[in-house]
């Protein structure tokens, strides 16, 4: 790839990331050369070390660190994997490559063949599953403080966006209002995007790609001056970072629309506060002011003076019985500190009481126009959301 003229933004990012990697890992080598037992101090990525920072409204990593010592029998393999992965990323940065996380998995996957003391030949893979190498990448992120986007590592693009927004990416200007029936794929390195021009009042994030397409075709974003985004299920980091930048830099309010079940609720919380697994990047990925627009339990069943959006008959037709896994997940959510607000406790209580869930498609079935032109605008207008 070297020799191809690169974007200046891109080159700067590479230089910075390479320097940090070099500095951090040179220390390991120095330890070895001076006879010290080498170790990596890595913040722990566990639920126990995940803290909900109430003031900032995001999940952050706690103070706990693990020491990954080469001489520790239980850690030696992971130590080797971390160095191996770091060297591959480092070399890719220097050689101006854009590896995907899958590329990194393949590049680092070797078979170590060795003879044990009894002379028997044995084999071991540096890693087996991609989950293993992905996890090593996350370790390097927390160890270096560099996100993988900073290290120019790509992943499969999942997020999509349309709306009155012009951006510059890789030297091209793209008008996100002229995507036809399609949409712009949110790139793996959203920090390399420049926002040039926009005319929008809010951001609507929908959990499901199908609902995104329906709202797009029915002209929802044009009518309400919205930037319409989907993460297609559990959002990737690029989508979350993109949403965050829209909120932070363009000062647009963010509304989120998911299924009415514990998984939908959790997806909302990932946009808002971050995920447990990636809490170290919440500072850059989370959008603490994001609002849960629906579909809420009270939308289905009503609450006090609030009337339900569904009639008795519609409820009978659209509601699905909750599974044991749903119930278990809801109980877990009730315990998370970021679900402790009265609004969420009420939602979860109703869910556990009714043992019923609803997919957004059900509202579209009631009528796409109902969803696009009544339900969503009415909820935004009346402030009927949960935070």
């Amino acid at each position, binding site marked *: 790839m070297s020799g191809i003229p690169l974007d200046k933004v891109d080159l700067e990012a590479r230089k910075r990331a390479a320097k940090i990697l*070099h500095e951090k890992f040179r220390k390991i080598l120095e330890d070895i050369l001076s*006879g010290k037992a080498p170790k990596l101090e890595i913040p722990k990525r566990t639920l126990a070390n995940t803290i909900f920072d109430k003031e900032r409204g995001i999940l952050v990593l706690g103070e706990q660190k693990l020491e990954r010592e080469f*001489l520790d029998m239980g850690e030696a393999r992971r*130590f080797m994997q971390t160095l191996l992965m770091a060297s591959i990323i*480092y070399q890719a940065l220097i050689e101006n490559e854009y590896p995907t996380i899958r590329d990194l998995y393949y590049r680092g996957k070797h078979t170590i*063949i*060795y*003879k*044990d*003391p009894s002379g028997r030949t044995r084999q071991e893979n540096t890693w087996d599953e991609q989950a293993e190498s992905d996890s090593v990448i996350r370790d390097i992120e927390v160890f270096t403080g560099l996100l993988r986007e900073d290290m120019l590592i790509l992943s499969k693009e999942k997020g999509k966006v349309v709306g009155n927004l012009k951006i510059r990416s890789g030297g091209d200007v793209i008008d996100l209002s002229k995507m036809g029936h399609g949409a712009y794929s949110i790139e793996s390195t959203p920090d390399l995007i420049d926002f040039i021009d926009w005319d929008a009042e809010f951001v609507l994030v929908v959990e499901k790609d199908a609902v995104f397409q329906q709202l797009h075709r029915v002209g929802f974003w044009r009518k309400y001056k919205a930037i319409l985004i989907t993460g297609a299920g559990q959002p990737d980091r690029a989508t979350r970072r993109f949403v965050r930048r829209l909120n932070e830099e363009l000062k647009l309010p963010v509304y989120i629309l998911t299924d009415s079940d514990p998984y939908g609720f959790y997806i909302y919380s990932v946009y808002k506060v971050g995920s447990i697994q990636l809490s170290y990047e919440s500072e850059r990925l989370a959008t603490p002011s994001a609002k849960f627009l629906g579909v809420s339990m009270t939308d289905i069943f009503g609450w006090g003076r609030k009337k339900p959006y569904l009639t008795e008959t519609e409820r009978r037709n659209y509601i699905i019985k909750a599974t044991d896994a749903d119930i278990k997940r809801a109980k877990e959510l009730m315990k998370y500190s970021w679900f402790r607000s009265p609004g969420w406790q009420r939602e979860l209580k109703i869910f556990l009481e009714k043992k019923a869930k609803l997919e957004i498609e059900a509202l579209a079935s009631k009528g796409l126009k109902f969803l696009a032109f009544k339900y969503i605008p009415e909820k935004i207008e009346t402030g009927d959301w949960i935070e």
Partner: protein
Amino acid sequence: MDKVPATKSAKQTSSKEKSNKEKFREISVAEFFAKNKELAGFANPTRALYQTVRELVENSLDATDTHLILPEIVIRIVNRPELSGSNGSEQRFTVIVEDNGIGVPPTVMANAFGRVLFSSKYVIRQTRGMYGLGVKAAVLYGQATAGQPLKVVSATKGSSYSYMKELFIDMKKNEPRIVSEGQWRRRGSWHGTRVAITLMGDWRRAKNRILEYIKRTAIIAPYAEIIFETPDGEIYYFPRLTRKLPRPPREAKPHPHGIDLEHFKIIIKESKAKTLLELLVQEFQSVGEKTARAFLKKIGVNPNLNPKKLLRKENEELLRSIVDEMKKFEGFKPPRSDYLSPLGEDLIKLGLKRLFEPEWVEAVTRPPRAFEGNPFIVEIGMAYGGKIPPMNEPLLLRYANKIPLLYEEKEDISWKVLSSINWKLYLINFPAPLVVLVHIASTKVPYKGVGKESISEIPELEQEIKNGIQEVARRLRAYISRKMKEAETLRRITTLAKYIPEIARSLAILSKPPEKWSLPSPDEEKLIMDKMAELIATRVPTARGSDGKTQTIKAIRSIVESARTE
């Protein structure tokens, strides 16, 4: 069985036993044996073939090592189809065993093989054959099943002639009946005995037992050269491994604790002692004059009593009470054990090494102990690992007075003790490659039956076997524990060392500054690898001593050098 010879001297037997004896008076000892073959181990053709080999081999060993001659024993079993019936299972074989022993003098030759009798000499000695009956039982069995006479050729050490006799045992008269005999000038310097017995046997069934018997004999007598030729034409050769012979057993007088009424009567009859005091001092071991007086005083018997008077019928009760008191009296010193013949730790280890090629072998000769006035020594050998296959339980090799015991294993005291050992305490988890050898040397081995295949549960014996097994097992535990530690160290080293090349390569790349980037050279990687190997060697605790580090670095290097990636 002890009662059988007494029929010949029934005069002195008690009235209580008389009715029993009457029945036997009509038949000779030889006849008795012929009718009770199973008692001597001749229950069927399989067992008979095995027993014949065993009796002859044991006689040969007694005629050699006991007299400090390094044994050379040739065993041949020859198929005799011309004597066999049409029925395949009724085959006849001739068992020929030749040794280089002291030989049998021509004057006693006929009786030694042709008359069933007990030794009249009441001294005791640790020998392989206990009753002197075995070979004669084989002869009786042979003449009954094959109709062939025993053939013996023998030359004693000093004699200028070799003598030959062919004989049957006259069962009614219990006398040898010689069918042919001869003598010739001895050729060379050979001395020893060659015995051939023809009998009905089942080689196919007996083969494994006989082989096992000979192998186990080779284990316990590594100083012997043994050649075995089978009817199938195979030859098994066990060369001599050492010229070191065990100390030969010596004859000894009986200990007062080991005496019984019949035995005591015979001693009185044959002793020249004039008084009871003299008798005790002269005819028993561990009895001095002082002890004898103290004993007689305690039981209130006149020391000057003529012992022959005790044989009178009216003194029967007195005699009985003297014997009972003798057994109980605690003033006698324990029986002497210095005339027992243990094998010694070296010979046991040598024998086990040859047959099993283990990675570890140890043996112990326990201090002498006694039961009922009989001294005994327990010896334990253990072999572990190497070419021994893992088994679900330890392989037990039982020996009594250097005789391998093959049958009735589960009834034996050693089996009982072995089964009670908790091997986990000794870091052994079955299946495991473990062989345990138990040798009991005694002037009286307490067999369960005349077949001499299993030993009774005598508490003193049981305790000694247990102590011995535990003693050797503790050494085995130390060995296994050291081995486990070494294996653990190696495992740790391997776990770390295999990653060295991968880590060194990665660090070499990462250590190149981005502004002056180039691929690292092999030398740079090599330097990191060496440093890491040293680091492991320094930091991983080794089981070995000061040379541990050098050893470890060597081990790491070889792992690192063998490691490659694909």
